[in-house]
């Protein structure tokens, strides 16, 4: 099982490589300002994700001004793990729907 914040980070990275501060901004946008992650917390999670091989470090894309910065990239293992986690969550949601805890999503 992956921690909720790590799921968020992985999801953000699935859209493209980001540096640390970029991850914070994306999470802010995505959650409409409710999840505001600070540096220490973010890098602890990045450290854990890197140790597990779900995230790789990479160079900045060419159009970036600051080429020194490290960009984080979703590894293929990370992509699989994220997919598996999402699958697990979908099954959970289905179960919740069948028990009447959630109204079934349309479409």
């Amino acid at each position, binding site marked *: 099982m992956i921690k909720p914040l790590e799921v968020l980070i992985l999801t953000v990275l699935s859209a493209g490589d980001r*540096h*640390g501060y970029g991850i*914070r901004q994306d999470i802010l946008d995505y959650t409409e300002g409710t999840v505001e992650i*600070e*540096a*220490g917390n*973010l*890098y*602890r999670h990045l450290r854990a994700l890197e140790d597990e091989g779900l995230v790789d470090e990479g160079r900045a894309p060419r159009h970036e001004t*600051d080429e020194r910065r490290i960009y984080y990239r979703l590894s293929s293992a990370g992509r699989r793990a994220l997919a598996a986690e999402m699958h697990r969550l979908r099954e959970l949601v289905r179960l919740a729907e069948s028990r009447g805890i959630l109204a079934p999503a349309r479409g």
Partner: protein
Amino acid sequence: MRLIDFLVRLYPSEFRSRYATELRDFHRDRMLEPGVSMPRVILDHVHSAFGEHMQSLKQDIRFTLRGLARRPAFAAIVLATIALGVGANSAIFSVVHGILLRPLPYPDADRLVTFGHKAPQWLTGQNEYVAYKRDISSFASLSAFTQDEATLSGDEPERVAFASVTRDFFTTMGVSPAIGRAFAEDEDHVRPATVAILSHALWQRRFAGDRSVLGAKITINGYPRTVVGVMPPHFGYPSERTDVWLPMRRFVADSLEERGNYYLWIVGRLKPGVTMPRVSNEATTVAQRMMQDFPISYGTPLVPVIGELSVALLGQTRPYLWALLGAVGFVLLIVCVNVANLLLSRGEARRKEMALRTALGASRTRLATQLITECGVLAIGGGVLGLAVAWGLQRALVAVAPSSIPRLDQITLDWTVVLYTFAISLLAGLAFGLVPALRGARGAPADTLKEGGRTAHHGGSSRVRRALVVAEVALAVVMLSGAGMLLRSLINLQSAEMGFDSRRVLTARVSLAQVEYNQERTTAFYRELLTKVRAIPGVQSAGAAGWLPVVGRGGQWGVMAEGKSYPPSQGPSVVPQQVTPGYFQAMGMPIVSGRDFSDEDRAGGTNTVIISRSAARLLWPELPDVLGQRFQVGGQPSALMTVIGIVDDIRSRDFQDTPEPTMYVPHSQTHLTAYFMPVSLWLVVRTRGEPMLVANQIRSIVKSMSTTVPVSDVRTLEQVVGTSVENRRFSTGLIAAFASLALLLAGIGIFGVISYGVSERTFEIGVRMALGADRGQVLRLIVSDGTRMAVIGVLLGLVGAAGVARAIRSLLVDVPTIDVVTLLAVATLLPLVGIVASLLPARRAMAVSPTEALRGS
């Protein structure tokens, strides 16, 4: 930016080296946002840094546990060694804490003092007490008391210790009864006292803790008394055995007896802020004024002695307990050295692993942290096990400790002891971890890796290990010589002659009630009792006396030889003892000249007396033969007594006591010649076999004569005499046990180092044997190695032993500070241990086959 640099530094080095720049970049961007909450940013970093540290600690611990699990024997030995050392320390600390360090159970106990006089008065008289109480301003209150034993009647009559106390006794101590009340204003007029306060223990024992005991009547020494209060548990003054407190009659100025009768004990409470010198000065001034006002009453000067109550209660036990704590401290040191050695030898085995990890990029600090974590885990694990050891050891100690050690019931494993245990465990962990950690982090990885698979003789580390073993032997020498000197002191003490023969003698206290037994009935009772006791098969002789050596003492009475006159208050004084016929035989005290008492020495006949040699010299220094001479007890004129016999002097308190001049008055005449006849006597019965076997017969004889007479304190005379040295015997035994443990640990240490050395030197030994060395030479090589370490250790230890001897000087009896006998014994013993410890590895070395050894490399 300086802030972020500081925050980054909080993280563990590994995390820092990976993310420091990132964190700074992040921070720069973050600061551009509007409305940044700095506390939030700082808190996030602190929290994360802490989390990362815990994470790496968790990893290290997991790594350590895995490593230990791989080598269970190593882990077990280390943990057991630490547990033993820490456990012994905690157990002894719990004793020291319970007895010495914990405050006395009285509020502001540091303001409580005992008040007495220098010899020969020791105690205080009524007049003096009243004067001190009135004239010394330093005391908030000053209370007097006397102590004795009494018979508490009931279905099973019982002897109880009681204290008669002045009314302000409980306010002085600062403790009120837990239920009921203290003595009231009008209750100290009446004699005998009609009210009593019970101890918590007696209340539980006799009345099952029933509150209806308040107002109930109990019979003490034949008089009914109303119980008005029960003291809280642990209130044990003047003695832990005190079970009943009675009000002492108030001293009214007119009724004051003449001066010179010193029988009061005094305890006082100082006013806040009063120093000991100040109160002593005041007391001395009052005493000097009394001596000026009544010069005739004070032939010998009256010198007040004031001391802290805690010293009076615990002073005797204190040096033994500190010596014990010192001894276990040494054991712990040796344990540390042993464990350090074990870790070092394991460190050797892991040098390649460490070198590999360094080469793969693990930092030095990282590896050192890893080693320190390992020590921490071992220390805490050992501490937990040590606590279990302490728990068992402490219970065993309390169970076998002599009851004369004060406050035994205060000894518990409380939080202080637990904290102490973990503190010393961690301290020990630091001590035994330091050397291996420093060594482990040092050394170039390339060199180690280059050595390849061959275990070369690694000079540096081996030197450290040998030095540690030498230190261990030195510590053991110090402990053994200390223990040896204490043992010799104990032997010296016990070999001193008491002056009587304590083998095969039973003693017991028989207590008649004053109200039921007048002098005639008392005499008749004891005559009949002794006749019946002598008829028991196996009894050789039997007698009785007013007090028993070691247990009691007879006081000091002024006496006057017939026809002599003495300057006031400067006449001779002797210790009085009241005895029945048969007493001297039963005690094994031969009559040196003259005759023993018989039943003919009775009231109405000639008043007779037997005196000790020193009493004879004191009374008639000019006469070679004093038989037939007469003297009388001073003070009120009493009847003259004729000396009919002389006995040898005895020590009546302990083995170090100087015998005092003593007079033995026949019990049946005491009321005529020596003020009063004691109704309670100590039975002394000499048997042919085991004395305890006749105890029950004596009990049933007494019961058949009267159901109200309790028989108590049934012990052999050897046990009675033993109580005078039981504190010393107890602590000396413990110290000797700890010293043996130290010796064992030192032996194991030598064994470990030599045995490791042999496996290291297999190649060398193989070469030597291939070159023609025979087995004997190999044996000598190995054994001399072990012996050499022992000898160097002994030489160092002897220096330390001199220091320890100085520290325990006050406990030594007839043993010089540099005790050649003990030191020689220890100096021979340890090299022997060295030889034995290296024999086993040496056998292994002799079995080395040259071809195997050379090929194996």
